[in-house]
């Protein structure tokens, strides 16, 4: 009986929170199609009263946005796959019982989370010594291993019953084979999670592009947006009447539109990944 109340509470709580999360986003979406004057008059509003593509036309003008999209998608795809390979194998080793030095390795890995690369050192490494300036690899390589995500995987791997490993060994599998054939399939939930996180990390990054990619044709989406928005804000303080723009730039609308075009692909990716959150992938694996 108590259960019914509890479940009821659960649904209400989650729904209320979800509404709080969704509404602002809905407003951003709707308002990105509003006119700048409408935005000024009413601020953030829920229901569309007028329709205007001004903000989007501005963003898409010049065609830069298409190449930026292409670069972002490429970098995210290659980066995520690469990062998953490097990180998951590394995390597995950190979690494995037989590895004597796993604590030392863990400490050394965590250390890099605290003492990040010094800016000048980092720049010199990538631009001068590795010569990766203005290449797509400058956008991919530096993020292949994120200690935070690695430790999430380590925690998950540690929870996998060791009996599975033992059974595999008895069957004559080597460690690498055990990892690939037996452990990875079971780890689908955490792999989906971390995969999503890496994809987001690559997708959202503008920092690497700012430092290492001067060629605007190789600019990913986020740096293009950042440049646009940052410069827009400055324009209003530069001797206003002397700029050559004779049309008004919908600056607020642009901020909203950029959120929308950024979220696009990821929102498509997320429901696909939700399929991997199926329970009980370990049943039968041990008992059988």
């Amino acid at each position, binding site marked *: 009986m108590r259960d019914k109340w509890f479940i009821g509470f659960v649904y209400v709580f989650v729904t209320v929170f979800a509404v709080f999360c969704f509404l602002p986003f809905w407003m951003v979406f709707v308002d990105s199609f509003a006119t700048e004057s409408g935005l*000024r008059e009413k601020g953030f509003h829920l229901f569309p009263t007028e329709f205007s593509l001004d903000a989007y036309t501005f963003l898409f003008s010049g065609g830069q946005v298409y190449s930026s999209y292409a670069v972002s998608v490429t970098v995210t795809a290659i980066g995520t796959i690469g990062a998953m390979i490097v990180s998951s194998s590394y995390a597995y080793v950190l979690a494995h019982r037989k590895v004597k030095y796993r604590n030392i390795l863990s400490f050394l890995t965590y250390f890099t989370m605290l003492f990040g690369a010094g800016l000048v050192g980092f720049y010199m490494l990538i631009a001068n010594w590795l010569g990766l300036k203005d290449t797509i690899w400058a956008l991919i390589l530096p993020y292949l291993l994120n200690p935070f995500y690695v430790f999430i995987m380590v925690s998950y791997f540690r929870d996998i019953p060791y009996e599975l490993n033992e059974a595999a060994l008895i069957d004559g599998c080597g460690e690498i084979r055990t990892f690939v054939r037996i452990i990875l399939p079971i780890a689908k939930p955490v792999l989906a999670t971390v995969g999503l996180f890496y994809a987001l990390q690559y997708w959202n990054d503008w920092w690497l592009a700012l430092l290492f990619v001067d060629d605007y044709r190789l600019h990913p989406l986020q740096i293009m947006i950042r440049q646009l928005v940052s410069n827009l804000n400055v324009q*209003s303080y530069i001797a206003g*009447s002397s700029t050559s723009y*004779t049309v008004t730039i919908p600056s607020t609308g642009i901020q909203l539109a950029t959120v929308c075009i950024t979220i696009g692909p990821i929102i498509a990716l997320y429901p696909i990944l939700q399929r991997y959150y199926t329970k009980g992938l370990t049943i039968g694996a041990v008992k059988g």
Partner: protein
Amino acid sequence: MKWRSLLGILLVVMVALAGCSSSGGSGKETGSNPSDSNRTETRKESKEPVVLNVMLPGDRPADFNKVIAEAERRMAEDGLHFRLDVTFVPWSDLKQKTQVMLSAGEDLDLVFDAPWNAMNEMIAAGYYEPLDELLARHGPNILNTRPKELLDANRFDGKLMGIPLNNKFKDPAATYVIRQDIREELGFGPIRSYGELTEFMYEVKKRMPDIIPYVGSLATGNMTLVPFSFRDVENGPEGTQALYQSLVLYHRGNDSKVFNLFDEADPEIWDRILQVRQMYLDGIIHPDIMAVKGQEEFKKGKVAVLSLNSISVPNDIAAAVDEAGGKAEAITFFNYSDKQPSMFAAYNFICIPVRSEKKVEAIQFLNWANEKDNYDLLAYGMEGVHWEPVGDDMYRVLGDGSAYTWFPYAWIWNPVHDRIKDGLPEQELAVEKFTRDSSNFTKHVLAGFSFNAEPVANEIAQYNAIDAKYYGPLMNGVGDPEELWTKFKQEAEPHVKKIQLELEKQIEAFLNRNS
């Protein structure tokens, strides 16, 4: 034991790697610059285009490639085989990126910088090359499109460390953009003084409760109400080079004396502070002035008076207010007919990094760019496509202006060739012309003085942090002045004292040198 030995090995590896790579890297860093003249000879013979790496802030205009191609073509005709590789960096990240690149020894030939962008520090750290000789030999156009006062006033320690970029000699003083329709409705004639302005604002409060009388474009620096309101007062307090726009240390008129507000509570300034506080309590000043974006509020049509930095009403504000059902006009109390003292300070500079290997070529390029036709090309775009001339000194934009946005302030601005935009109302046109003519200005005694912040860098950093806490709220009337001032004074006074002494010392040295 295992931990230690492993850590030890790791440290050794790290240092070794860093050591070898640094000698490889520093080979590039400490490379000496062979005499420039030799290298230009060889270059001219090889006929290979020299690539100039330029770093500018802002947006890449859509037609930039076309314009640059045309520029390169013209330069080749003139015997200069250059290629311009221009990188645009967002304003907010420009400083960091240039510093990282220059620190890592990257190849940059022309860099944008400005005193408000920590240029003095960069000079103190030895990033830029002194240009006097190079300009004398290769840059005659650059020198003769800038009046002598401008060149003299922008030296650092007597040397020209960057080419000053400017088109006016006096910052337009305090300009207020007000709602003309509201003014007329309330029966006010044109507003001609700060007193009338305050009267107007109180009237707005009384009879139009839905409209907020005042908001500022920015809530910090010299856009805080008190300093802003003094900008058009004759011999009003003006900030110093040490603390920029803060009035804690200030000058008055054409004089080099430094006043310290902590030492003596100047009655004129304090009166204004108390008045502004009263205005805030009376609801004249926007209650969230520290948090809102003033221009946005004004555009919404909810504010009567906005403080701004431009002589005329900017297009976007005019259009927005129009849509909201009102009309905006710009007013200023500045007297534009008498001769004014000016610091001749340039807003921006274009500098050449010390490590550049193409300094001569860079100057040659800028020299070429400072000829009238070439300036027109780079500043406004291709004639007939992006713009058309209106007489000799004005221009009109063709199309909507988005194909080639205007940015000469970033690298080639000079007062002689810069054209005025067509379509300005009479009064503003007169003001523009007035401020571009250097003969309308007398030299301020401190023109040419630049403060080296290095000896008091720590105190300035501390002051900046403390200032951020109290100055804005104090000068905008948001908090109780007595309370804020006590805390402000207690925390900042010792630092300011040290800064003041250093500033006075440097000013004295400067005056002695130049007298």
